[in-house]
């Protein structure tokens, strides 16, 4: 099956925006992605040492809140997986592959992906959210810190792009 074209970006953005609006209205909060890793880490930390978890600046709030994984944003990520899978499958885009530019090996590309992931996990912890929870959701709410975060994501990306161009172009 020939892969279908991606949607017009404004159309995909409108559907994403309506989904985000519905999420605000239904839950009183936005969408997110980095809540899942954070809550998995909280679960592990709670199992290892509740005292350490309670004293941790980033995890303190999770001690008395019950099971950290019983959370709207955690379950939402399951939905994202399903939506991404069905979306790719129905468009003929599901393919076990590695996305990379022509000038880098698969191994090299995966190293970059891992390092980028580690940096983003660290950064999302520091910023209390990622592009979904801060830039997208906080941006639509006009939260001050979310707009600062969003501008800095673009700044960081453009500042680094030249150094990693071998990977993409």
């Amino acid at each position: 099956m020939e892969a279908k074209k991606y949607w017009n970006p404004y159309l995909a953005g409108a559907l994403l925006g309506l989904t985000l609006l519905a999420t605000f209205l239904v839950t009183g909060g936005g969408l997110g992605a980095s809540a899942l890793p954070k809550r998995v880490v909280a679960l592990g930390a709670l199992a290892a040492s509740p005292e350490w978890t309670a004293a941790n600046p980033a995890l303190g709030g999770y001690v008395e809140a019950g099971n950290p994984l019983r959370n709207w944003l955690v379950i939402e990520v399951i939905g994202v997986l399903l939506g991404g899978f069905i979306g790719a499958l129905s468009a003929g885009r599901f393919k076990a592959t590695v996305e990379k530019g022509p000038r880098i090996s698969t191994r090299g590309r995966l190293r970059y992906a891992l390092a980028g992931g580690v940096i983003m996990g660290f950064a999302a912890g520091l910023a209390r959210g990622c592009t979904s929870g801060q830039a997208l959701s906080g941006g639509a709410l006009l939260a001050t810190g979310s707009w600062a975060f969003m501008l800095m994501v673009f700044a960081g990306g453009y500042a680094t792009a030249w150094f990693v161009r071998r990977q993409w172009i």
Partner: protein
Amino acid sequence: MSEIFPLVFANDEIRLLTAVVLGFLFGFSLERGGFGNARKLAGQFYLHDMTVFKVMFTAILVAMVGLYTLVGIGWADMARMWVNPTFMWAQVVGGFMLGIGFIMSGLCPGTSIVSAASGRWDGVVTIAGIFVGTALFTVAVDVLPGLESLYHAGEMGVSILPELLGLPAVPFVLVVVLVAGIAFVGAEAVERSFRARRTQVEHTPRPVPLLKFALAGTLGLVLVVGLGLRPAPAEEAAVRPVAGDPVSSLELAERIIAEDPELMVVDLRENAEDRVPGAYPVAPDSTARAVLAGASAATEVVIVDGDGSVDVIPASWPAGPTYRVLRGGWSGWDAEVLTPAAPQSSVPSEIERVRRQNGISAYFSGAGTQSPQVAAPPPAIPSGGGGAKPKRGGC
């Protein structure tokens, strides 16, 4: 009238179930936009594919305009919305770092899930890295005092841009829409000039001008509706519920007889022939404010209407006094206080009730010499308990 949104769920399981549906739509629209493809996302930072900017800002505009419109017409309550608290320096540094990670991985945390779900191994590896990085931060913020102070640096609490800049929300939203519209035009131009020089991953179809006009038109219309409707519901919504419990007619009557100094009676009915003694007619709301100016925090204001159905008061009424509604309104007063009662049974408590009611009734219907009897303790009643307390009202 209170705001409908955000919804309140009685059942937590159903609330959690909405996460699967909305998460599905989130993942689906990201995939359709091309956000499962790291090469396409990376194109944003080499300027030949501005899809990230276009999808993201369209989404922000739609959600922002929709939400602020619903807040404007009084359907959604911003105060009950969870807004990301601002920790300025933590978010500036964290954002910059995340941008570095973004261009290295080609994905962000949300899109890495979509990438993995569409079979991309770079997405799977990115997710693994995010878990490691999250754990790393959690440990580091505990160990390094410098990182912990950065984590809390620039704390501003919940801060909204229009409030921070002292601007009303609706014009501010309008300005954001206009600026984004100009930025979309700019992004198209940049993309066109860089696309010629770079190999294209996969061309997104050229946006149909019609669609852009339709989108701009819809956003504008929604905003105009939001602006136009804004003042009307503000007045309609300017009521608050009556906080105190209702007062029975007999209790009110006893307090009038006892000349309770903390009692104030206001009558909402227009052109009524009879009123509760001492009641202030407050039919036009402007007179109410003058009357209520005499009420203190200790005052109990009893509200009389036709049938006791009133349950809200204008928000302009002072907040100090306790407001209570006369149960049954004027009809209740008429039936219980102005009409002598006949005993329903020969139980002593019932006879006592009728005695009290008739005493009060006689007082108010003009034969008012029996008032001492009302205040006097009842004659000895053989059975204790229930007999001592008069059974109130007819409901």
